[in-house]
């Protein structure tokens, strides 16, 4: 069944957290939550836009590959590269327990983030804010393209 109703409620819910503080105010964990939720909202918005939850015309869905989805809607390459770079620079715990990096094609890895307060020398709030900063410009460009978040 082709899904036609957008996930507007979900997007609003995640968006309310995504718009959290970026400048060091609020709780220490705010940037991680803000980034994760911003990516969830982004994924939902892009899938809603492209109706790509169950695949269309036999094509496979994009999973959680937000960068791939952004390319599909022709967001500026430089912004996509910057988002990719920011995600890849975030440390996370891999399935085998070792240290790795977040897969930009599978951003939910972010839940396994290795933060410097737990793992010295790993990801910082500054790193998370860097990714959020790029997302902000991506969101602006999507609005400009009339893709509703």
């Amino acid at each position, binding site marked *: 069944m082709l899904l036609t109703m957008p996930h507007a409620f979900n997007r609003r819910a995640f968006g309310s957290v995504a718009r959290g503080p*970026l400048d060091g105010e609020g709780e220490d964990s705010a940037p991680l939550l803000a980034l994760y939720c911003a990516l969830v909202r982004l994924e939902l918005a892009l899938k809603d836009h492209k109706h790509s939850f169950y695949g269309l015309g036999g094509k496979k869905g994009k999973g959680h590959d937000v960068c791939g989805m952004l390319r599909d809607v022709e967001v500026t390459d*430089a912004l996509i590269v*910057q988002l990719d770079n920011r995600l890849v620079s975030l440390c996370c715990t891999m399935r085998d327990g070792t240290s790795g990096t977040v897969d930009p094609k599978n951003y939910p890895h972010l839940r396994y983030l290795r933060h410097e307060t737990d793992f010295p020398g790993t990801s910082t709030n500054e790193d998370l804010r860097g990714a959020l*900063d790029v997302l902000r410009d991506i969101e*602006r460009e999507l609005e*400009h393209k009339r893709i509703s978040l």
Partner: protein
Amino acid sequence: MKTGSIFLDDLKENGLSFRYLFRYPYVYVAVTDPAFGEYDDREDREAYLTERIGWNAAELRRTMHQANFQLQMLTAEELEQEYGHDRHRGHSWLRSILAQAHPPAPQPVETQESPIRVVHFHGYKGGQARSSCLAFLGRVLADSGWNVLVVDADIEAPSLDILFNTKPLHRDSTLLGVSQGAEPAPERVYTSPLTQGNVDLLAYRPASEEYDIEAVALAMRAAMDPLIIEQNAGRIADFARNAEYHLILIDHRAGLSPYNLPWLHRLPGPVVIFARLDEQWSAAKSYLPVLLHAYPSMPGLFVSFKTDSERIEQYLARNQAQIEQLLQLLVDAKLDMQPATEEEEEEEGIDLTPMDLRDHFLVWPYDAAFRSVRVPDPERTSGDLRAVISELRRLLGLEQSQRRPDAPRHLHPSGAQDEGAFIQTSALRQIQSTSSSIRYIFGRKGTGKTRLLREMAARGLGEPLLVDPNDTGETGLRSRSTAMEKATETFRENPQGLWWLLFGCALEQRDTATTTLEKSLERALEAPPSISQLVDQVRTRAQQQPRRRIFLLDGLELAFNARQIFPFMEGLFHVLLTIQTDPRLSERMDFRLFLRADLAEIGIQNIEQQIHGQVIYLRWDIQTIFNFVLSRIQSRDWYRTHFHATVEKIDQREHEILNGLLDIPACEELLLEIFPPRIPRHNLQTTTFLRTYFTDSASTSGPPGSDDTDGERATFYPRVYDRFVEVIARPNEGSPSKHYSEEQRKGDRINPSLLVFAHEAAAQDYLGQVRQELYYLIQLDQEFDQNRRRIDRLLDAFAGESSPFKPDRLASNLAGKSGLGEPDVRAAMNKMKAIGMFEDRPKHAEDWRVGRLFKSSLRMKYAR
């Protein structure tokens, strides 16, 4: 045709306020007006705006696109909500040009304080000697004691590795590696023999084609995300500060590259701008101020490469108008500098004109020295070029010397303890880079192997792992030590194990400090692992190394007795071959083996293939040895007291001497101000005496050290000359075999008889040192002390024997005199020949002869 600049001007003219924010790659231009609040739809807001400024919607959209503007039309409240927390992101020409054309920027341009001094080199066009000038400046500064880090930031056309004649092998010595998270490990490309100052290079990428994809991918990614450049710049600056570099020189991509400004803003510093006076620079007139404003306290200067022989004064006069235009840009940058104090603000501005800054325009003259050598010795360049470099240093605030105060140097005949100045021989030039392909350094005793190892360690080119037993340093395991003896005994049946264990212990520690190495070795020997476990251990530990490590091995001649030497040498070469060829090892570790040449010829299988292209033979030719002699004369107070004027002349030519570059006639001229012209007793010219009496070769044809490929021609021995020079200064100290009772000087030169005395003393001392190695090389008895006594008897038996000689007949004579078996004596003579004490007599296939150096110490005589 509308442009972004016209748009912003029209906004101002029509009373519309705006704020812009640069967030790479866009400029967000937020136009604010309360009227926008009446319109929900963007197109309606757009209609309002275009009407206000007299544009139409199509040209507005086109202009925004072409200028990379993201236009936002907002009320003040919307602006605060939408952009209130946003900051600029990324540095680029677009951002800087905008700030220049429409100041003040909504937020001040943020530049960070660099943790270390930096100078940038930039040219609008390529081919203007920018990289050559940078490389040359680096070398000149190193000669003044500076430790300089050179960074090749020209991502699209890097060339500094070529200029410095090196091939970056490992990614951690490159910018590419740093961007991949590697700890920077720049390659040492020059060390000044005079001051120990260095130039280290962080090239852009490894030379291997394997990295072609990553190299262009990084260029592409960095163009889209300048934060990559800024992050790399930050890491490099932190590394440079921690490694105590004095300065970073950065070579930039020409033109309006997206890579330039991120470097400049992350590491602010003056910019040396290259601009040839052919008007082609004028297209950059709007952009050059961006460079000059990056570091207001010292904006920079201009350099122009003059390609022909036109007189500099004429060149300057002919191009006066262009020069003034360029200098005007510099004047503007200096005048725009923020005042530092309130008093400075109240002072009347200084009326600065371009001609007040005319010394900030330098002409880089063409110099023939660059024809054959890309980074020539400054002494070989023209006075004009040296003057320009001096000016460049002065204008950049780099004129001072960083030379460390001369500490007293302890001179010693043993390379393990000698601290005398090191002559820059061709051998050192070949191995003074960490990416050198030379792994095997062979040479006869006394040719400087041990001293070379210590020099390499001091220059950071390797870590001593196994050292001479007489070494007094604090790194490396002495080859005759309790730990080494225990390890030899443990692995007697499996010699490779000793070497794997040694490397494993070294990799376990952060460095090769003697005490920790010994403890690690002793701990491991309590329960020695199997060979395969040792090999796995080394592989695992190698992979864990944060940086590539080079281990230096020496002292093997005294590590094993005659029975043990072959199996342990064979084991060592097997292990070294594995290290060379296994990428799991060679990526993270390497070695340099210093070895007496004959030990590499004891029948180890396939050794020629193993060392092919990776071996040098240490040899001193006449020029380098004469330079060495002069350096040792310079270092001894006695000569400075008694031959003050000559030693002052040596001081003035110190740079050439330490580079081994003072030619033979000039060396002889200086030496003959100290030594007499002839030695009457031998009816010999002193220059002939110095050339021929200090080699192991009896040959009169062809000088020692001349170019050949087998490395087995005779050589001079710096150790012998050093002792010779010392005995002249102090003839009756250091337990000479005889007493010298005549005057040291005869007239205004050294007494000829003292030359003969000093030569004999030096030759005897040298034989004494060779004797120590013979105790391990020759086996005349199983028991070491008894073996030693027998060898002493054998050497004493040579006294009075003739040279040339038939070896079998001499062996018979020596056996009779010493009481040793003739086969043993014959075998011993073969080994003595292998280390250069004897040689074949030309045109007399059955005869041998003794070299002059050993003739006198063995007290043999020439048979006419």
